């Protein structure tokens, strides 16, 4: 993976740039000591590291604006950073860049139950948004696995999803407004407490733009009343294909589960060894969760079980209590940790049409043999968002490269069958060079032109999302 060479003129002016940033921020909000900047050298894609020129930790929109104005004047690239949980390298710095961390922007600004929204500073963690309203019976729906740590800013940057977006949608469907600092320091407001911001849908454009169009400092988020309850059913099958058909049939039946999660045999075995959730030893396993009152849940689960039974499952385990529910979810929730116990792993994020599930799983297993690397599949089946986990040994020379080549093949396959490279993690640096497999030159060019409008000098997270050769002239400009 290549990153652009740092601009030596910026490196040479480090002291001057740091001094200017210190002049607009409180003491301690500029991290420039080479030992301390190492804390910002990577995000959750730990294979790639590079300490930034410095990191800034502003606590207000005005401070962010002041930082951006200085970086604009100095021509310094800015890499926005939420909580650093990106699996795609979205917050990976270059040596000549300023990391703009939003960790100190963590206040709740307004909570309005009558109008069902909450306004927060963007560094607040996803789970703590729900935490701020749950005692009053509300929640914020998007729930990425990293929700304990990840920041709303990063969720907006990557348009994060989660296990429950089959019913509630992803970040973009729950974002009502933002306060955003433009690359030159200007502050803009888009949307707010009303639905559908007027004019062109700039909010929709900003969500998922990976910090390349502006720095979101505040967000108005839709909150929802918590359902009375939720319970899953676990169903095991002796074939991936049959499990795939079952998913289709459930969706077609008109029941709308909040989640349909899928695990294959390698993943089931790994999680059993790790967490001991008591899963059946079978080819494929579905966890299907529904919501409502107890009677409503019983009704929906019985319909789902009826559909599943038609597909000759090897096991059906309907939860009847919170305890049983927790046990069913235990394995799924520890799947990543379980795979991590076995070896290093790379987590992919391609999405495919649900109908292509059996074919794609078969091809992945064939490729796994060809590459000689094991792979486990655990993913959101209802919406076709796959998370193949490829196991490799980071200490073995050549293994990472082999793993990346395998991953790229899987993602190309996702595109080939009508899907896409990334469903909820973002492109970052990880999938940057694969963009040409999904988009033609013109399709990419129009996206670059969008960035030209928001960030004419290409200072915001410039080496991400698009292949470097496609952006070279712009980044130099």
């Amino acid at each position, binding site marked *: 993976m290549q990153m652009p060479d740092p601009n030596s003129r910026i490196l040479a002016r480090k002291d001057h740039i740091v001094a200017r940033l210190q002049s607009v921020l409180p003491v301690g909000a500029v991290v420039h000591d080479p030992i301390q900047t190492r804390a910002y050298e990577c995000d959750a894609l730990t294979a790639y590291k590079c300490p930034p020129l410095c990191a800034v930790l502003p606590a207000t929109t005005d401070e962010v604006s002041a930082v951006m104005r200085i970086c604009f004047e100095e021509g310094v690239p800015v890499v926005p950073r939420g909580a650093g949980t990106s699996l795609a390298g979205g917050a990976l710095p270059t040596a000549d860049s300023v990391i703009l961390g939003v960790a100190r922007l963590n206040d709740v600004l307004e909570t309005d139950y009558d109008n069902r929204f909450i306004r927060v500073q963007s560094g607040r963690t996803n789970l703590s948004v729900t935490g701020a309203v749950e005692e009053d019976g*509300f929640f914020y729906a998007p729930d990425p696995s990293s929700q304990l740590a990840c920041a709303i800013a990063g969720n907006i940057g990557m348009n994060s999803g989660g296990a429950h977006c089959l019913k509630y949608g992803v970040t973009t469907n729950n974002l009502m407004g933002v306060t955003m600092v433009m690359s030159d320091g200007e502050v803009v407001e888009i949307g707010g407490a009303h639905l559908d911001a*007027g004019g*062109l849908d*700039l909010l929709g454009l900003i969500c998922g733009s990976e910090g390349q169009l502006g720095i979101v400092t505040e967000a108005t988020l839709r909150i929802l009343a918590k359902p009375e309850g939720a319970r899953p059913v676990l169903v095991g099958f002796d074939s991936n294909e049959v499990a795939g058909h079952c998913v289709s049939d459930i969706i077609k039946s008109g029941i709308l589960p909040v989640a349909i999660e899928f695990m294959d045999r390698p993943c089931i075995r790994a999680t059993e060894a790790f967490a001991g959730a008591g899963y059946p030893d079978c080819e494929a396993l579905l966890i299907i969760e529904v919501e409502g009152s107890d009677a409503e849940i019983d009704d929906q689960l019985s319909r789902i079980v009826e559909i599943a039974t038609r597909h000759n499952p090897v096991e059906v385990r309907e939860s009847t209590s919170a305890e049983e529910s927790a046990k069913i979810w235990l394995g799924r929730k520890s799947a990543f940790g379980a795979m991590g116990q076995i070896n290093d792993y790379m987590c992919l994020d391609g999405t495919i049409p649900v109908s292509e599930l059996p074919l794609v799983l078969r091809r992945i297993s064939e490729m796994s043999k060809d590459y000689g690397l094991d792979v486990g599949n655990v993913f959101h089946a209802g919406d076709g968002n796959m998370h193949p986990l490829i196991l490799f040994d980071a200490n073995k020379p050549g293994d990472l490269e082999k793993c990346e080549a395998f991953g790229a093949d899987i993602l190309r396959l996702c595109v080939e069958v009508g899907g896409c490279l990334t*469903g*909820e993690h973002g492109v970052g640096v990880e999938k940057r060079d694969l963009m040409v497999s999904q988009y033609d030159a013109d399709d*990419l060019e*129009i996206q670059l032109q969008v960035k030209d409008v928001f960030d004419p000098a290409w200072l915001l997270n410039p080496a991400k*999302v698009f292949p470097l050769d496609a952006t070279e002239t712009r980044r130099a400009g």
Partner: protein
Amino acid sequence: MSNTPTSEQDLSDLIQTADGPIRIIGGGTRDIGAPVEGTRVSTAGLSGVTLYEPGALTLVAQAGTPLAEIDALLAKDGQRLAFEPTDLRGLLGTEGASTIGGIVATNASGPRRIQVGAARDFCLGVRFVDGAGRVLKNGGRVMKNVTGYDLVKLMAGSWGTLGVMTEISLKVMAIPETETTLVGDGQTAAQAVESLSAALGSPFDVTGAAFSEGKTFVRIEGLEASVAYRAAELAKGVLAGFQPVSGAASSDIWARIRDVSAFAGRDGAVWRLSIKPSDGPRLVAALDDLSPDATYDWGGGLVWLHVADQPDAGAARVRAELAKLGGHATLVHAPADVRATVPVFQPEPTPIAALTRGLRQKFDPRGILNPGLMGA
């Protein structure tokens, strides 16, 4: 080559060789925005469903496909477009048949928007020809896709000012087993919005919340037993005194609200205001000097405002009051000469207007696509 292109290439050629403004026409049912002088280009030749996978909740259709054709196809498998596209022919006095391209281009979403999202939330992918004649695509046909910028959302609701859409992928959803509407009588607008807020803040999954023609309406949809349970819980709780209506009587209520039928056939102007729900009644009260008539959807956050006998359709007053609260106002229905002089869409603050202008300049460098429709 004609003004009714039958392929993307045809459309691209037409746009590349155009020597003046183009007025894009879908079904011609939404005569909204400043009048556009230009060669009419119809999407009627780009019609037909290209893919429908009920088990994946996905439909791909060419932009000129009539809504009725899509509705009929989906209904065979018990599915529908959940965002409940509006049919404004009665309100606007237009004829023709809505197309999916027109619906998406105007982000035309009905009462269920409050719960499931707007048209833009159901768009998975788009193909379009921009103002330079480039054939472009964005998104795809899967539910979750963060590959590059989301131009799908940008195209939805761009009113043809960024490109002519040729194909759209949509998420569809199941038609629920049944629906019930709880109807309340005798509330003021402010009381109604309080009731609606309480219902929307309950765990009972309300899919419609409106106050129109003196009545308050709350809709519940889903499985039979579940709807009965939730309706009963609401009626003995926050909606005490409300009466249940089911079946066709219920769906008729929502068609009427969706299509703003209350104001159909009336002289005067009709505004569409998107605001914070609790501000709805307050805003209408502040505009008392215009003798307005209002219906409220989306729990109070979508106000349809009828104004009679105002030379500027009440624009100065509506926008002055709105500015105090936030939100946006669109002059949906007014005589063409009024729409030619009054900004139909909400004027934007300077930095936002600059972004809009910048985007339009990239997508349509010659400024030939529906020029002026959304403002300068």
